[in-house]
């Protein structure tokens, strides 16, 4: 049936868009969570002397986030370059 086929096609298209939007959201969340974890490890010593972030910790967090974004971009570029050279990866 034509109408059914059209509907199904729309649903598949819609499913594709959904899955892309979900994937993008998933990527951003993972990136955020990894930065929280990584910068906590790098900037907040596990001896807790008080319950505020001190000056040094705050500055460290700012730089840590900026550097993580830079690393994320560079690794992405390297992977893209590798993929374009046709080197397969699992």
């Amino acid at each position: 049936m034509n109408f059914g086929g059209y509907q199904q096609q729309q649903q598949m298209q819609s499913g594709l868009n959904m899955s892309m939007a979900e994937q993008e959201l998933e990527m951003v969340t993972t990136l955020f969570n990894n930065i929280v974890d990584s910068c906590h490890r790098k900037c907040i010593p596990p001896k807790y002397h008080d319950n505020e972030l001190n000056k040094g910790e705050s500055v460290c967090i700012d730089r840590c986030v900026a550097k993580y974004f830079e690393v994320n971009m560079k690794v992405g570029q390297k992977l893209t370059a590798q993929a374009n050279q046709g080197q397969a990866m699992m």
Partner: protein
Amino acid sequence: MDFSGLSDNDRGRMNAYIEQKQMKDFLRLYANLVDRCFENCVNDFTSKALSSKEDTCLTRCVDKFIKHSERVGLRFGEQNALLQQQQQQQQQAMGGAPPQ
């Protein structure tokens, strides 16, 4: 994120998805925070109850982590905005129309 490419119906489902995801993310954060602060603050198993020293450590661990997450959130938003701005400029420099 830009969801303008989605139909109304999809946007509704996307919102439901996001809501469910926020709940899941919150529960993940909660479990993560418990695990991290237990790991850092509780090391004495000669007693069954938390000592006052461990309790103080826990309070600081939770408070600091929340403030840490909030600061990362602010910087993350700025960096993300910067990134999207750069990508738009790049697309315009290449003479390409932005994707509809």
